[in-house]
């Protein structure tokens, strides 16, 4: 095996990683806001709001991210709405992530004991205050493990937008590979870069989870 590897690749790939992280950060943040609203809508909303929230999560979770990316990148221009490739990528990733985050938030909201909300109401809190001071703080803590998985999954799936020419890590890897004919070496390095970032984030998030852990709050293990 002749592992030919050039240091010249690294700055190019490094910049790609920055774009990957940028995409991931934007998408997870937009997805967070939409996701939590969808979850609240699904649990507390009236019938039309509930139906809309469920329809949203069903559609986005039931179809491949790649199809969603293509709808934004090829579909919208075909009906006269022009979207840049970066925007198409960000939109697809954000809206997709929102659907998954909504599911996780909904699960955690429903894991908050109803009796505690009733106790808050008995103290004179409004429904909104009950949600704000009892449900949301517990939800945010309980959701951390599944939310972490979603963040990492999003980071990895952001590689799909190379297909619509967003110049993130995967795109740059592919360009270098096609110029140097060194697919194996290039993609091993790309793989290691993703792997490193994934392991780094997993550990950070696990630390956060430990730090905000509260005795008695939602670790129903499979046992």
């Amino acid at each position: 095996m002749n592992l030919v590897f050039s240091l010249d690749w690294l700055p190019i790939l490094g910049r790609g990683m920055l774009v990957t992280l940028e995409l991931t950060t934007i998408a997870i943040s937009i997805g967070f806001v939409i996701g939590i609203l969808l979850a609240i809508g699904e649990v507390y909303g009236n019938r039309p709001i509930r139906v809309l929230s469920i329809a949203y999560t069903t559609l986005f979770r039931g179809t491949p991210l790649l199809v969603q990316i293509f709808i934004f990148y090829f579909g919208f221009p075909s009906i006269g709405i022009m979207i840049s490739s970066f925007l198409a990528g960000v939109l697809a990733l954000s809206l997709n992530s929102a659907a998954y985050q909504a599911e996780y938030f909904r699960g955690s909201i429903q894991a908050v004991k109803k009796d505690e909300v009733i106790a808050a109401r008995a103290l004179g809190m409004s429904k909104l205050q009950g949600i704000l001071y009892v449900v949301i703080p517990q939800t945010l803590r309980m959701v951390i493990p599944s939310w972490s998985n979603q963040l990492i999954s999003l980071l990895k799936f952001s590689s799909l937008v190379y297909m619509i020419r967003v110049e993130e890590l995967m795109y740059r890897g592919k360009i270098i590979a096609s110029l140097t004919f060194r697919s194996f070496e290039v993609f091993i390095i790309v793989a290691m870069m993703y792997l490193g970032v994934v392991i780094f984030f997993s550990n950070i998030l696990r630390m956060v989870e430990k730090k905000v852990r509260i005795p008695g709050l939602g670790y129903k293990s499979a046992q």
Partner: protein
Amino acid sequence: MDKLIIIVNGIPLLLEGLIVTLELGAAFIALGLALGLAIAFAQVYGNRFITIFCAGFVQVFLGIPAMVLLFLFYFGLGEFGFNISAFAASVIAMGLRSAAYQSQVFRGAIQSIRSGQITAVKALGMNLFQRIRYVVLPQALRYSFAPWSNEYAAQIKDTSLCYAIGVTEIMREGRYIVVQTFGNAMLIYIIIAFIYLGITYFGIWLLRYWEIKLRVPGFGIN
């Protein structure tokens, strides 16, 4: 009217693509299931060396994006003269990846079986193989239904990634139609989206039905 003609003309192509998509999905899931179960049992019952090796395998395949794995197995291996088809490369890369995911599901399920039951059948004189076959496996598989159906859905959707290395699955056929008919991208991709939606939820529904049929009283499924 034009739109209707495009759809009607497109149906055979999309169906061909759908068949390839389903073949891919079935292959990923089958390979992942067999290997995933093996890894799960190895991780629970294996010695230190085996456990560490399995953990490493899982970490690598969970940590690297599917797209990168596809490129490594298709273009990367090609560099060493392994000229396998895009389909075969897809099955290997995505099947191994699915094994890593499925092993997590099964490992959790195996570990959730109460150890008292194992002790009880040990006391009856069952050997390891019998304990796995008659006590662990029937329960572990029941526990696995819900997380496993997520895995099924993920694998079906992830077949679309094989488009990137040139497998003519449904996305690729869709792309042909879009290119040939100059435009209509929105229409075609929405049709494809609904086809995926259909197979994803049909499978989930089927699994749910099966899970309910196999339900045993006192079992932690709801």
